[in-house]
């Protein structure tokens, strides 16, 4: 069957078997390898992408079920060459260790901050409870998400707020 899925804004039309999973459509058909797949049983959360704006485990959705729908993957977080604050947070606070769970963590964290811009540590831990980090690096992941929340709360730095450079 032929399916068309809009991935990060571009329509991807491919001939697929009905049993092809969305995660494999994204990786093999759309050629976007940022979405990882791990446990294959909906437990680990590394395959999380957004389907119509909501995080889902793409190893448990058939590509056929996403036909005509919108998917956003980790490659779609960066906008116009600017990293998403959540991506920056993971860099600043060492939220990556081996990095395998990172794409799913980023997608879930971005959705959390969209719904709740000022989450408590408990709320962050609850939101990522379906995401397993095999390095057990949760402390820094939680810090990374908080970093992003704080950066977004402080807003973009305007010209008048920039430190005045000393002139000779």
């Amino acid at each position: 069957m032929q399916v068309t899925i809009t991935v990060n804004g571009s329509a991807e039309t491919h001939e697929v078997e009905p049993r092809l999973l969305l995660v494999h459509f994204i990786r093999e058909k759309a050629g976007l390898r940022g979405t990882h797949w791990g446990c294959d049983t909906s437990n680990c959360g590394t395959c999380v992408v957004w389907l119509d704006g909501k995080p889902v485990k793409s190893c448990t959705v058939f590509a056929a079920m996403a036909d005509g729908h919108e998917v956003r993957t980790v490659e779609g977080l960066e906008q116009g060459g600017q990293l998403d604050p959540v991506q920056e947070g993971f860099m600043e606070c060492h939220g990556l260790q081996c990095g395998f769970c990172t794409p799913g963590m980023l997608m879930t964290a971005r959705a959390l901050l969209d719904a709740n811009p000022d989450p408590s540590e408990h709320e962050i831990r609850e939101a990522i409870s379906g995401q397993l980090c095999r390095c057990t690096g949760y402390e820094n992941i939680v810090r990374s998400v908080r970093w992003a929340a704080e950066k977004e709360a402080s807003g973009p730095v305007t010209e008048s707020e920039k430190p005045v450079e000393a002139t000779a």
Partner: protein
Amino acid sequence: MQVPAPFTYERATSVEHAIELLGQLGPEARVVAGGHSLIPMMKLRLARPDALVDINALGAELGQIRVDGTDLVIGALTRHADLLRSAVAGEHFPIFHDAEKVIADPVVRNFGTVGGSLCQADPAEDLSAVFAAVDAVAVLRGPGGVRQVPVRELHIGPYETVLAPDELLIELRVRIRPGGGSAYEKVERRVGDYAVAAGGAAIWLDGDTVSGAGIGLTAVGAEHFAAPEAEAALVGQPATDESFRAAGRIAADNCNPTADQRGPVDYKRHLAAELTTRALRRAAARARGQEA
């Protein structure tokens, strides 16, 4: 990579169309909504349907939560996350929020559905016990029309329901009665796991006397996920801790847990008693307005 066996995929555009497709495709076709129980089973080849009928496009018909007269109505295609967020469901039956907080994990709850949980008929499924506790009615629709089946008669065994192959679960109806409270208590090994055991309670008080009670149990081999002997013993009794503990003991005596990787029989029976007692205590506190 785990790959399901091949199947034919059809997308339903209306409830009528879904029923028509199920009729055409025969008894080896399955309905897929969230798919979070079915698809892992298909990957493991524990389920091998010939065809899938995707009902995800029927949200407008099947995805609503509303009050209709004296009933709270929950559409079969309601996502777990939406039931967790629903103010109207939480206001009338806080048990739904208690349970939804501990069903799978937040990402799974975005796609998994209420109807899918009930129709999967997993013996350790949470919502079956919840809907048994509040004594809900399931509305089924087939080619011949609509029929209503009490949730306590919906399941006829593990992974088996009374639904005909060409019938679709449309919605769940729960009668709203004044003076009630409800709660759900679950013990799980880790986030997202099925229960080791869980107990749900709905209670109605007439002053300090229990005028009505519903008790649901999951993962402990309770027939129809319910504990009717404990309910019968509770009605007419004072709403005290002693009565709740007695009801918990009766519920535990009348269930039939099996030993597995989640624990031995004695532990599960102990949990059945304790969680029933706690759920009743919390439901009663809510009925008295002592806990939101």
